[in-house]
């Protein structure tokens, strides 16, 4: 791969008490690609992306994003680095007490401080149109369905123009039609905003739809790495169990 790595992880270890979740993970995310991370529940997929964004501190190893070691950054510099990273939470994590507009304004006011109110409104309308929910501007999160919440959450993430997107199980808990729509949105975001993304999932359909490259995590290590085709043609029993 000739492209520059935007995320470089080397020998990452993370444990909670006596339970070792990540024993030795090394991977690179290259500019402009969608990397899908597969793995069984509890294999440490979510822990991996939480270490990338600094929500969890790695026990050992290095996590570099745009050549900045996340494990060594102070709070201020970590905050600055996070402005370039978008994180879509599994639950959506919309702020319950705020309307959709306020949810979108929240990161925008803090990260893009120089925008005027008019420019802010235009940006919010643009991302809402991109996720197909322009009419949800004044709704509360409690008035939205699961799929709509995911879309708004995606809109809140892309509204600040992140360079790296981290998706934590974006299609979990959604019906097949909505899952397909979210998968299409992920590829649209990649094309339109030129983002590099790590997509954590165990939804094979979503993985097929979005992946340029795949990684399988098992027992806290990278079990297999390759193109989607390599995974499809694999005879390994663990890989096959996912693709059956």
């Amino acid at each position, binding site marked *: 791969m000739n492209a520059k790595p935007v995320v470089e992880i080397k020998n990452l270890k993370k444990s909670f008490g006596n339970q070792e979740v990540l024993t030795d993970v090394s991977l690179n995310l290259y500019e402009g690609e969608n990397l899908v991370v597969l793995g069984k529940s509890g294999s440490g997929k979510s822990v991996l992306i939480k270490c990338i964004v600094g929500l969890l501190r790695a026990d050992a190893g290095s996590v570099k994003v745009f050549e900045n070691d996340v494990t060594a950054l102070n709070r201020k510099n970590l905050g600055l680095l996070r*402005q370039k990273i978008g*994180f879509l939470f599994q639950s959506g*994590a919309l*702020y*319950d007490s705020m309307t959709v507009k306020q949810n979108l304004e929240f990161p925008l006011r803090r*990260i893009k401080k120089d925008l005027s109110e008019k420019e802010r409104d235009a940006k919010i309308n643009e991302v809402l149109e991109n996720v197909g929910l322009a009419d949800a501007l004044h709704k509360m999160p409690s008035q939205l369905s699961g799929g709509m919440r995911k879309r708004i959450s995606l809109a809140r993430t892309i509204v600040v123009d992140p360079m790296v997107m981290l998706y934590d199980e974006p299609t979990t808990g959604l019906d097949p039609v909505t899952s397909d729509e979210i998968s299409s949105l992920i590829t649209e975001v990649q094309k339109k905003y030129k983002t590099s993304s790590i997509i954590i999932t165990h939804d094979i359909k979503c993985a097929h739809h979005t992946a340029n490259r795949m990684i399988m995590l098992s027992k806290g290590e990278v079990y297999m790495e390759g193109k989607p085709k390599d995974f499809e043609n694999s005879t390994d029993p663990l890989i096959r169990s996912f693709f059956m």
Partner: protein
Amino acid sequence: MKKFNPVAKVKGFATTQSVRLSEKTMAKTVMANNFLTDIADVFLFIIQIIRETFSRDFEWKEFFRQCFQIGYKSLPLISITGTIMGLVLTIQSRPVLINFGAVTLLPGMVAISLIREMAPVITALICAGKIGSGMGAELGSMRVTEQIDAMEVSSTNPMRFLVVTRVMAAILMVPLLILYADALGILGSWAGASIKGDVSFVLFFSQAFAPVKFMDFFPAFIKSFFFGAVIGLVGCYKGYNAGRGTESVGVAANSAVVLASLLVIVVDMIAVQITDMML
């Protein structure tokens, strides 16, 4: 037939007992360790709040929203309890004072007991229930649904946005609610006195405020800021550090009310001792 071996029997007994003892010691050590860790966590939490309070980017808008939530939205509850407090105290005390021929002292007695003790403590306990549980449940559910993490990854310090604003609003609003309860309590007392006999409004109030001195009011006002701090700190600490499951939201809300109520009583006891030494 199996031969009885006293040495082996004693050895076996000693081994079982020593294993039990070491298990108990381990459990006690873990408990003591957890307790000390909790205390250290609370101190770090308070230090972080103090540091964030004096940072440049204070969240004024959220602070005023919290003042509205804590102060304005508690007014109906405080109005009812404050009025009833004064009314009941008057109706209960009146027959005793009549027996001693001291019914003219009733307004002053009620005013002093309300200002010095009853209004601050009862209002603080009500606030511990209403505000403390609200903070514990709201922050706890934000923790469970990853909203606090979402705030952190969007370059916002959740400690500054969620905790500092709530604690500061509680410190400011609880004393104001206590002053409001004082006023309504005395008004309720006049209503109680009017039910039992004909008392003029002006006479009642002049008799109520005549014996009240600055030192009746001042220590009570000062301790009310500590009540606000305790309620805000406990509510936020329990909610902010809630576990990951939905059950932990209920636990956070419940323990916030219990601990805040208990600490209000403890702070009151300390404040009374200090005031007593000063007078």
